[in-house]
């Protein structure tokens, strides 16, 4: 019974971090991503500072400045001004120029529109991270979702030989088609992983290529809008479209004769917004995934399989079912991301559709540490960067590529979080690690 005396001392040790850990739990989790963003932005500022295009600065003249370095130093105030304006440009692009309030709704709407697919596809990747899987296939699943939904949204009435279907049937059908198509594209690598051990990283990359080629084939083939010069599908039926929230009435001459729906109609350009119901779907999905992962047995199984597959098997959980299910769910979410882009925003499917949304979603899931709630700010950040980039380029002549540098730096600092911890002297939080890379070593 000698240990009887030891045991209380041992428990004391674990009591101490408990209160603070619980109260500021979310902050502990968020501190590294936030500092990663800060560091990336600061480095981005340095890059702007040294690489400002010549036309924004006094020209270098040997007779005036004496040397290149003197020129550099004498332009420091000017450089600081331009650097600052790059970031104010970025901000006003994303959230509006707050000295001109009329620009605010459009800018924020654009940011939310950019963020919508990021939220959905980010959730898709986060679900697989939780299950210990690395779904690189969000891109392909998104394309398949877009294809599935556009097929139904543009062609379903003619399958039944009617001119149009009521929205109550056509819209849900289009949504469901996108979700199912994406889900199936996720189930394939999930099944291959569970049954044959084929690594999902490899299979999803391959399936991305296949999806891209399938899309290309269909858009240039049976799904091509013969009357259009662009390689694209016909416009979808108005009854299959996700409504805009507030905008001017559509100009049918630009939309193949369709009058797309909106909740509120306006005549003011200030309120002619692109924001659509996709953002509502995205927030609903955030809530749903949070609920699923934290409140339900199925989510518990996904997390357990991700944390410790041996224990999951021992506890009677089906590894195969969970892996296939998580990949299917992930594919469905990515499919919904593609669907909402097609039936909420674009109204048709073009050959240049996704431009890497599915790959950016990996970064968003990483930045959010797979936490479904944190996906929202991570996706908004990404969306804001992309939206603001244009305004920044106009204001300062700094290339939009700066945004890609900042994004890449954020990812680097998240992936190699030890760098951030070292710079800011943050201790490793106990148990705070994510397990997304578990499946790499196997």
């Amino acid at each position: 019974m000698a240990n009887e005396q030891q045991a209380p001392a041992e428990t004391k040790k674990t009591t101490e971090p408990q209160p603070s850990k619980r109260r500021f739990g979310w902050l502990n989790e968020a501190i590294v991503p936030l500092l990663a963003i800060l560091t990336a932005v600061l480095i981005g500022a340095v890059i702007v500072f040294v690489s400002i295009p010549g036309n924004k600065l006094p020209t270098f003249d040997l007779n005036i400045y004496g040397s290149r370095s003197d020129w550099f130093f004498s332009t420091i105030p000017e450089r600081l001004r331009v650097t600052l304006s790059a970031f104010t440009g970025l901000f006003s692009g994303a959230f509006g120029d707050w000295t001109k309030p009329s620009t605010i709704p459009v800018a924020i709407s654009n940011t939310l529109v950019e963020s919508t697919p990021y939220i959905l596809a980010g959730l898709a990747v986060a679900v697989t991270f939780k299950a210990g899987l690395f779904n690189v296939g969000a891109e392909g699943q998104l394309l398949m979702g877009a294809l599935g939904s556009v097929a139904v949204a543009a062609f379903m009435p003619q399958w039944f030989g009617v001119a149009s279907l009521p929205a109550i049937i056509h819209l849900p059908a289009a949504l469901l088609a996108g979700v199912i198509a994406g889900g199936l594209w996720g189930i394939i690598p999930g099944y291959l992983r569970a049954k044959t051990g084929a690594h999902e990283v490899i299979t999803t990359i391959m399936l991305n290529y296949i999806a891209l080629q399938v899309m290309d084939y269909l858009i240039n083939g049976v799904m091509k809008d013969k009357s259009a010069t662009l390689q694209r599908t016909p416009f979808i039926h108005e009854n299959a479209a996700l409504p805009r929230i507030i905008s001017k009435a559509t100009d049918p001459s630009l939309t193949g004769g369709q009058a797309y729906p909106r909740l509120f109609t306006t005549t003011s350009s200030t309120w002619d917004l692109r924001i659509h119901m996709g953002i509502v779907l995205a927030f609903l999905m955030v809530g749903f995934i949070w609920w699923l992962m934290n409140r339900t047995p199925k989510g518990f199984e996904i997390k357990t399989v991700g944390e410790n597959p041996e224990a999951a098997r021992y506890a009677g959980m089906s590894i195969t079912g969970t892996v296939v299910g998580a990949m299917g769910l992930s594919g469905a979410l990515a499919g919904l991301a593609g669907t909402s882009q097609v039936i909420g925003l674009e109204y048709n499917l073009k050959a240049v559709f996704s431009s890497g949304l599915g790959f950016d979603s990996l970064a968003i899931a990483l930045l959010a540490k797979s936490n479904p709630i944190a996906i929202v700010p991570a996706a908004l950040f990404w969306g804001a960067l992309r939206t603001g980039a244009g305004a920044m380029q106009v204001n300062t002549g700094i290339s939009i590529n700066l945004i890609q540098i900042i994004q890449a730096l954020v990812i680097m600092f998240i992936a190699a979080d030890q760098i951030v911890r070292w710079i800011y002297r943050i201790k490793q939080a106990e148990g705070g690690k994510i397990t997304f890379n578990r499946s790499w070593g196997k």
Partner: protein
Amino acid sequence: MTANVVPALEVRNITKQFPGVLANDHISFTLLPGEIHAFLGENGAGKSTLMNILYGLYDPDEGEILINGKLAKIKNPADAIGLGLGMVHQEYALVDTLTVTENIILGTELRKGPVLNAKEASQRVRELSEQYGLAVPPDAIVGDLPVGVQQRVEILKALYRNVNMLILDEPTAVLTPQEADDLFRVMRELADQGKALIFITHKLREVREVADRITVLRRGKVVGDADPKTASEGQLAALMVGRDVVLKVDKTAANPGDVVLKVRNLNLRDDRGLTVLDDVSIDVHAGEVLGIAGVQGNGQTELVEAITGLQALPSGSIELLGKDITNRPPRSITEQGVAYIPEDRKGTGLVLGYSIRDNLVLSTYYKPPFTKGLTFNDPAIDENAKELIATFDVRTPSATTTAGSLSGGNQQKIIVAREFTRKNRLLIASQPTRGIDVGSIEFIHNQIIKQRDAGLAVLLVSAELDEVLALADRVAVMYHGKIVGILPIAEATRERVGLLMAGIQEQPNGK
């Protein structure tokens, strides 16, 4: 042994403390040139820690190491090799895609200018291989070779670095009996040529066959030296598995009822085609503890995993209360009333990153009252945690503490609490008290007996002979995948069971 020979290696009072365990407790020994010195001990006895200290992977807290009579500081494996001490680990450190010669010279390449002197390197490998009778094909790709030959490459790798002492850590664990015999021949050859060898194992037969001297470790201490010529395997087994604390479990005689678990003719082979289960048949009755004794790795793990549905079986049958459960999914077996304490508490029994609360419902989370409709019923899960933490005396600051931050004993209590509180008919406990403190051992032992007295059939698997003898009503002994004897507890003396564990068959009249 002449006294004036300078020992190749002398270890004095090595002590190493890990959080919660004294892994090495003032260990001293000497190793003479030309001898094979065996270290015998169970898993967790401290053998590996000791060898890792010698090889510079751990720093000892106390004690000193002398090599050839001189005090040595070994900070890393490179120091150890520099001092003439090599080690062959259980997991080989070979590059599968390189040739034998390339593997051996890796890191110490002979050069001719900037270019590898392949000819001379391969010449040296050939010489070494001839000198010690270690036949290897120098130009073969290592990944294509059988395990036994790969091991020879490992040994050659050490010899190529001119070591005169060699530690072999459980070298026979992955070998077939024929390969093991080859290894012993090589070991003898090395010793005859003056090398000093440390041979780590828990297999009694091998020790007696090859060692010059035996040191037995138990719980971090040297508990005895033995001469392989005079010590019997029974004595060695007793030394190895015996325990200084005699465990007393208060229990009355068993009152066995109907057969609950009926296992018939289980056969299983592993990936290499070696027999793991050899026609295993057992019965476990309600109200009795059937203890399975045996040195680890003789098929106990696979037997238990077969019964619990974690190991697929090619042949044989398992019945629970007359119902066939062979190759059923684990959950269906659990639901029919099987509680299971797995041998790997951290890897299998718990999700260390989860709270105690969640671990306590790991196998019942999907059922009422823990799940109501589609979602978890938190009050019920919290209540369950509160109740079990109190009943099973889990020492923790709160129910939301992660399982990983608890001591081994408290972790095991979580598993016991979870498994014992379902409606069970059969209890399977595999190494239920390995590596935990004495207080928790006692608690878990009493819980197991309580379950037996409540009418459950109990199958206990333990490498600790004392534990089996203290708890079991009948003792089955496993050796090489076979049940080599089943004894009522009254007839199961330490000597008799020890002999069976060593694979020595009883005389026909002994039964």
